[in-house]
């Protein structure tokens, strides 16, 4: 959390913790692979498979940022930067999807 922690390494999760996070990442990857065989699109709603895969990916990304990149112990400024970068990523998705969601509407059709 503080600069002191950054210098001394106190507060970090240590090797067992890092291996634990790594195991979670590997498990997430395997889970993503097997979940792609479930027909969530048919049973829940179209795009559910993709949504689940993205949710797992987002969870894995959060683990990497918090623990491997030490954001969890970093000053608020770093937190702000991390959140801002996610906001920026959201811009890319939002505007791209604005194309996909409205493409089938044609030209000023009702």
């Amino acid at each position, binding site marked *: 959390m503080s600069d002191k922690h950054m210098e001394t390494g106190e507060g970090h999760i240590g090797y067992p913790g890092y291996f634990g996070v790594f195991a979670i990442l590997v498990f997430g990857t395997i889970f993503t692979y097997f979940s792609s065989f479930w027909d969530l699109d048919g049973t829940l709603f179209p795009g559910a498979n993709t949504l689940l895969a993205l949710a797992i990916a987002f969870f894995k990304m959060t683990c990497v940022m918090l623990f491997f990149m030490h954001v969890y112990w970093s000053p608020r400024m770093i937190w702000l930067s991390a959140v801002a970068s996610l906001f920026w990523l959201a811009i*890319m998705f939002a*505007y791209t999807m604005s194309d996909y969601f409205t493409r089938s509407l044609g030209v000023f059709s009702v």
Partner: protein
Amino acid sequence: MQNVDAIGSGIPAIPKDNYLTNGFTLKSWLLTKDHKRIAIMYLISISLFFMAGGLYASAIRLELLTPETDLLTSATYNKVFTQHGILMIFFFLIPSIPAVLGNFLLPIMIGAKDLALPRINLLSLYIYWLGGALTVYALLQGGVDTGWTFYTPYSTTFSNSYVMAVGLGIFINGFSSILTGLNFIVTIHTMRAPGMTWFRLPLFVWAQYATSLVMILGTPVIAITVLLLAIERAVGVGIFDPAIGGDPILFQHLFWFYSHPAVYIMVLPGMGVISELISNFSRKKIFGYEFIAFSSIAIAVFGFLVWGHHMFVSGQSIYAGMVFSFLTMVVAVPSAIKMFNWSATLYKGSISYDTPMLYAIGFMGLFLIGGLTGLFLGSMGLVVHLTDTYFVVSHFHYVMVGGQVIAYLGGLHYWWPKITGRMYSEFWGKISAMLVFIGFNLTFFPQFILGYMGMPRRYASYPAEFQVLNIFSTAGASVLAVGFVMPLIYLMHSLFYGKPAGDNPWMLPGLEWRTTSPPPTENFEKTPVVTWEAYEFGEESGLDLEAARTRDSVTTV
């Protein structure tokens, strides 16, 4: 000699101990952590890429001298314009001002001894070399013919040129940009000298800061996009190819999400240079400092919201296109703010028409044309007629060459005395600046007319009625080439025969002019304390006003 008393002392001597004399072996250069030496190595590297890109441009203009496909075959022509674009954009324009002038000057301008991460700085250079070497290897092996935009599905499915190798070169090179941007941001946040508050930063530093934000946010996207392209090409995963479940327009979204902001990576640092030149050669505090500073940030932010204007006729939804068109008009506002403020700075200024200032004034005219024609291309109706014509080619050359390259040359001339400790010939400098301006307009203005008349880009042949304007364009390119080669000669000449510049040849208040020329390895003997505002030409800055008034007699060669 970094204290205030030193300003204007006019001692024209090269200091014995400076960053250039701190080791003469190859090892002392290749393993240096000195930002100034790294900048010099970047300078040499990007100049070589600029020359290679220029040779390709010459081949293009020679081919287009006649309507027929005679000098090059169509297939070769495709490779030539592709490689011209790739070398110029990824290996010259993007790194030019940040990696050369930014690397050299940013720490000095904020009163730091080096960048915050010197080893990372050296690493970025090696990565740049690695990416460049791989790309050059691929070009020599046979090159790539996709256009610098690598549009799918041609690049993933049909092209049998060296797409993968060039893509990998660009992918690797991207990390160089990211590391440079990261280094600048950390340095500006953490290494400013006492008294160097955010609103005392030179506007060049603000521009570098905004550019760095774009670099670290945008470059990973192009890297991933190129990687996805390679995966589809190598493994056949359906990402962009509709035949296997992909969407080619997705490639364009991802590509332009980076590549439009990349325009600002190229031009924002140039704007920073121009802010320095306009204020300093008008000897007047810049008009609207805060507006110019924040307009750089605004350009960086809004620059990420307009990429869809490259895709109006691609099949993108018309509703998304309307949003992108509106936002394109919005992004013109901060650029206009800069133009108005530069003009207001000139008003009643004590303007001196030294070589850097000629470049700055040239920039204002050319960037104005480049920027305003961008609004034409941001209009959804008009762009149907203009897409993929020479109007587009001319527009982006007015921004990239008329804007960025001119600013780079202006900045290089402006800081050359600081970098080398020697003055170049003002006479030849002015001749060169005017040749570049004339040659540039002669080359590219006819292309606006050609494009409006319907001449498409990327073809080796064209109808005979377009030949006259193409001859004008090729003739202009010859003049432009002379204008570009001349600085190479007289700047090299100045290294050996130039008059010693002294610490502050232009008599300016910035921190970089308060250390020796060339600067010592640690930039300043003692950490400077900043007590004056940016662009302060009054006595508060410690300037010798009398010496400043008689500056011409000091610098004229």
